[in-house]
């Protein structure tokens, strides 16, 4: 146990948590917009896989990381459109359409991988770490927080950006109103469906990029099912956050920290069965969900909007 409590190890764990939290942040902030507008998207996992593949494929073919991110965003947008058509226009049950979208996305990404790249493990040159001047030179803290690649920094920038959009812009006001009382928004000339389309698609773009972080900003290769349930955790994090951006950050870091911690404990030979250790983040999520109470829960979450006839 002693070797766990030295600054190097602790900041090592934190630094890893900061990296591990990246995909959760993209996906969960995207999901936050969905849910604030009243839709929840369990298809995140599928969108992420499609994002991961398209980003990887484009980078592999062109070598341009920007194009890769763009490709993930476009594919995310297309997947988001599917989800939006089904859940907003066709007013389908959102939980099940999300599962359908996940099946589709996970399946199609494998199929494309197989068809276009013959299923071979290939690697690309992903985003490189950038040490932020001055801040990056602070002992321990510099390595933990200020020596990551650009996608990580952007992920953390998303939190204030999401806060500003939701709470400081006219669009954000519309989004919150649509999720809380779509009727009211409708009578003021806010198009409920337009806002929901926008949020579902925007959320899906972020989910696509979240997938891309796996294949071009962290592991720099593509594998089938490589997101391994991240999408579902991201959805849970939004509930955990009580629909507040900064609490998404908290949740993502907490979850990643527990993961990083249990890996470190294995490496240090602190003996807990690996399976039990792996269970911990999930147990933790359930426990924290119990304590989350929020007045900001979108009242119209998962309720398709229809103009009533009386």
């Amino acid at each position, binding site marked *: 146990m002693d070797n766990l409590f030295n600054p190097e190890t602790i900041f090592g764990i934190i630094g890893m948590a900061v990296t591990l939290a990246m995909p959760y942040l993209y996906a969960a902030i995207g999901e936050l917009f969905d849910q604030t507008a009243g839709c929840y998207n*369990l298809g995140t996992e*599928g969108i992420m896989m499609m994002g991961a593949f398209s980003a990887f494929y484009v980078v592999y073919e062109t070598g341009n990381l920007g194009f890769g991110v763009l490709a993930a965003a476009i594919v995310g947008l297309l997947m988001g459109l*599917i989800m939006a*058509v*089904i859940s907003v226009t*066709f*007013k*389908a*049950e959102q*939980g*099940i*359409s999300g*599962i*359908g*979208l*996940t*099946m*589709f*996305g*996970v*399946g*199609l*990404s*494998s*199929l494309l991988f*197989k*068809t276009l790249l013959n299923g071979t493990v290939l690697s690309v040159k992903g985003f490189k770490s950038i040490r932020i001047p001055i801040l990056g030179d602070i002992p321990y803290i510099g390595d933990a927080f200020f020596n990551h690649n650009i996608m990580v920094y952007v992920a953390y920038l998303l939190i204030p950006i999401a806060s500003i959009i939701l709470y400081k812009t006219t669009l954000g006001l519309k989004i919150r109103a649509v999720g809380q009382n779509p009727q009211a928004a409708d009578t003021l000339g806010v198009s409920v469906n337009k806002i929901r389309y926008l949020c579902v698609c925007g959320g899906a773009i972020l989910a696509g990029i979240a997938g891309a972080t796996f294949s071009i900003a962290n592991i720099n290769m593509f594998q*089938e099912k490589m997101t391994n*349930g991240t999408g*579902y955790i991201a*959805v*849970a994090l939004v*509930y955990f956050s009580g629909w507040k951006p900064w609490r998404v950050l908290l949740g993502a870091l907490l979850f990643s920290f527990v993961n990083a911690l249990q890996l470190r404990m294995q490496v240090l030979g602190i003996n807990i*069965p690996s*399976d*039990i250790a*792996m*269970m911990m983040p*999930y*147990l933790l*999520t*359930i426990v924290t*969900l*119990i304590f989350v109470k929020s007045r900001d829960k979108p009242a119209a979450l998962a309720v398709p909007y229809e103009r009533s006839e009386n």
Partner: protein
Amino acid sequence: MISKLRSLFNKTFDAIIPLFATLLALFLGVFMLKALGKDPLAAYAALFEGAFGSQRAIIQTIIKATPLLLVGIGVCIAFRGGVINIGGEGQIIVGALASAAFALYVPIQSRWIMIPLCLLTSMLAGAIWGGVPGILKAKLGVNEILTTVMMNSIAVYLSNFLLRGPMIDPHEIEMGTRAAQTALLPEYTFLTRLAPPTQLNTGTILALILAGVAFVMLFKTTIGYRIRAVGKSADASRYAGIKVPFYQALALILGGSMAGLAGGIEVLGVQHRVMENISANYGFNGIVTALFGSLHPLGTIPAAFLFGGLMVGGNKLQRTVQVHSAFIDTLLGIIVLFVVAAKIFSTRRSKKRAING
């Protein structure tokens, strides 16, 4: 008489919509197959043959349909109670583990005692796994979709832990292969096979009976009435003196026990031991099955047969035209999306009917 005929027609129409959606999805698959350079005609012929083309195919379909049906029944009950059970995977796993543990470690060598007890154990385990989200939902308002998903992951890790440690087949350790699976169960715990050498077993009959029981329970008894009332309006149920949290939790507990039983039957009837991935996506596909069956326990029977056929046929398709298995996954995803989206047509029709009186 005419109104009865009309209502029958309407019901049939609603039941057929998922079929339409499925066929449409298969049609889309034609283009995908073309793009993959495979012959769609041969592929779908194989699909059909593999699912329903021979006696063996049909038996395979039924074997596959059994856990789908059980999970589907559970999803129906939960859905009617206003809760969504996505925890089928985990419930199957713990159900399988529990029944195997009971069969392996309780030394009563009597079929008549052991089989019912093993199945009950699996139901109990599933009920607990569904009950945790159920009680959290009922008492504390924790979203059950998320907790059931989390419980799935926890079940997988629990199973990994047990299958590699406490419950591993001693033979595997002895041989040094250490495959993660339990020992073969004692023969007196096997469910009777109906058509040897296939694995068709009495579990299928049990599942069919349970579909009927669930139907009667939901629509002919006060318990089912309360579950449905709670699902449709918690406020009105509270007003009527129905204990809302209890019935919410009960819906998930019953749903969980059905999925748990699916795990138990899979072990006692088909696999005769627990190994990794015993749940084989039945948990998720069961949701789709229930949806196919319009969330009605009896509707779930043909739905399970159809969906089971699709899965068995899909494997055959993969073998025959050597298409990647991800093709089938993708196709299933499209089918789910189409079926869910197609619901709007029956909703619209019923609305129209209502307005027309």
